[in-house]
């Protein structure tokens, strides 16, 4: 039973990270019908920024919680700025082009960002410090749950609840939902669609950066390429949950994380990715729009 509990926690941890990144995919897809392949790179940039800021602060003699908060804040701001800029440079000029063009532009952006970080930083793996300050509370619960697992699950839950509230109850959230439902109609009712799109990218990037910092601190290493694998898995999670659906992305991430964790634990880690994608295929066979996806007619 203990083993089951540990696998469950591991799956939730991993799934929360997938969910945080998947939200960015699904939000952008909901509004633009675009798969933002550069999203995984934003996650990687977030982690890198946090590492750089944390190193600088540590050199200045700061330790503990202030480092974590400052590094996290700067990383989120920086990644959001990247998300915003990527949209302006790579997608906005192609808004009226066929759907294939921004997709290719996204792949190009992804390759560009990867190589940019590789050249500007390093192609080696870098150690990522455990930014969690030691605390009595975390020590006390470490019997049941690893401190970083706990922080990841709690943080993701808080962030996802906040996002849901934002979408449901604020004016901006309403505008975003309206844009997702029908962009032209939203425009007619006075929604500044371009601004909404920018904000979507900013929010998605911020979530990815949070995911990046959390997981990098958990596994303890990063390099320029971590965004690729995480991006693919998160994209899978988004499709699994129903791309375009916010709760779907969260659910998809958790399902994927749990499937990998239990698959590894009870069968074999050789097949980790096989489980992930077998689940995806199975669900898509029975629910082609994903678990929570609404089966909508393709707009022509």
């Amino acid at each position: 039973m203990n083993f089951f509990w540990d696998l469950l926690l591991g799956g939730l941890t991993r799934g929360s990270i997938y969910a945080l990144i998947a939200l960015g995919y699904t939000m952008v897809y909901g509004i633009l019908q675009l798969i933002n392949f550069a999203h995984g790179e934003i996650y990687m940039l977030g982690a890198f920024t946090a590492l750089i800021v944390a190193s600088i602060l540590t050199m200045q003699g700061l330790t503990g919680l202030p480092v974590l908060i400052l590094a996290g804040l700067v990383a989120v701001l920086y990644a959001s700025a990247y998300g915003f800029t990527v949209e302006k440079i790579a997608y906005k000029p192609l808004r009226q082009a066929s759907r294939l063009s921004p997709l290719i532009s996204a792949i190009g952006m992804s390759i560009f960002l990867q190589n940019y970080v590789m050249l500007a930083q390093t192609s080696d793996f870098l150690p990522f410090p455990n930014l969690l300050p030691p605390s009595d509370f975390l020590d006390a619960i470490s019997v049941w749950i690893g401190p970083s697992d706990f922080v990841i699950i709690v943080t993701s839950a808080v962030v996802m609840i906040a996002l849901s509230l934002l979408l449901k109850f604020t004016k901006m959230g309403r505008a975003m939902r309206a844009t997702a439902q029908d962009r032209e109609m939203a425009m007619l009712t006075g929604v500044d669609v371009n601004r909404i799109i920018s904000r979507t990218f900013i929010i998605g990037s911020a979530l990815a950066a949070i995911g990046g910092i959390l997981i990098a601190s958990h596994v303890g290493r990063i390099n320029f390429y971590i965004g690729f694998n995480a991006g693919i898995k998160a994209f899978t999670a988004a499709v699994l949950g129903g791309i375009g659906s916010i709760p779907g992305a969260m659910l998809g991430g958790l399902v994927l994380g749990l499937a990998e964790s239990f698959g590894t634990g009870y069968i074999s880690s050789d097949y980790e990715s096989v489980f992930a994608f077998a689940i995806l295929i199975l669900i898509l066979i029975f629910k082609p729009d994903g678990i929570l996806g609404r089966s909508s007619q393709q707009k022509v």
Partner: protein
Amino acid sequence: MKNKNLFRWTAVAVLLFFFVAASYAEKADTIKIGVAGSHTGDLASYGLPSVRAAELIVKNLNAKGGLLGKKLELIVEDEACKPELATNVATKLVSAHAHAVIGHICSGATKAALGTYKDAGIIVISPSATSPELTHSGQYPNFHRTIAPDDAQGKLVADFATKTLKLRKFAVLHDKGDYGKGFAEYAKKFLEASPEVKVVLYEGLTPGAVDYSAIVQKIRYSGAEAVVYGGYHPEAASVVQLMRRRNMKTVFISDDGVKDQTFIKVAGRAAEGVYASGPKDTTKNPLAIAAISEHKKAYGAEPGAFYLNAYSATLALVNAIAKAKSTKYAAVHKALRTYPTDTPLGKIKFSVGGDAIGVGFSMYQVKNGVYTEIK
């Protein structure tokens, strides 16, 4: 018509015989050493350093009057690491009456050529062919090598873990890649060779995965005393960190892919106490330093891959011929196994199977942030 053909073939045969006889008569009083390997093509960089090593040694020896009163002569043949060309090269060297061969470079080509050399009674010493079966199968008594076979790391790690550390329960993991999985398979085989040892977990993990918590939990619940990991340092660093964060004291033992300073940099404090196998340190060997500076003087560049192995192979061969006072197969074969030679790779002689004793890997342990060789 028939007569005409017969006449033609006779003429060709006579001519051929004439050439063979002439070249044989001309160079009868030299000791001929074939140097075979990839000197062109994609893998030329593996083969050319061996040619240079042999050339340097032969030049030095000839300047001092040669060996057994005869000059040494090199016959350099290229097979581009292709097995089908390697058999041709072997036939060529046999008909040129080579006394011994330094080569070949790639395992596949070496294997293809060995039968021909064996039938002709020619000693072969390869600087780089690592396929275990070449020495372990017993099929090629004429074969020797100055590099450790592929399974040497697995054997060393298994022996170290069971005999030195006296551990009994193992989790063997790998990264599903050629190198890591190969190592893990050999390690598992050698671990299970001792009846009291149990491999409780044998699995591959996914390189570049977001998290390795699940496999770490599996290690924890398997009750393994030690993890033997085949692969490279990035994944190893994550697994070790996750293990130490869960306060698991499980011993971590790995291969040359992890014996890298980056591993220690990334894993930080978690790296302390980790064991890894790696090539023996030859940088402080005066003969190695001399061989490298000799190469720099002659060719104006750093030597390439397997240079020291080829240098040692040639030295061992020359020494064996000198000690045997003959180039006869049986005498040289015995001398290679009896008399140790000082080489850039250390003092070496050959085992019954043909592996160089004392060449290969050592165990290292991370102590205070550096890999230290365990003597």
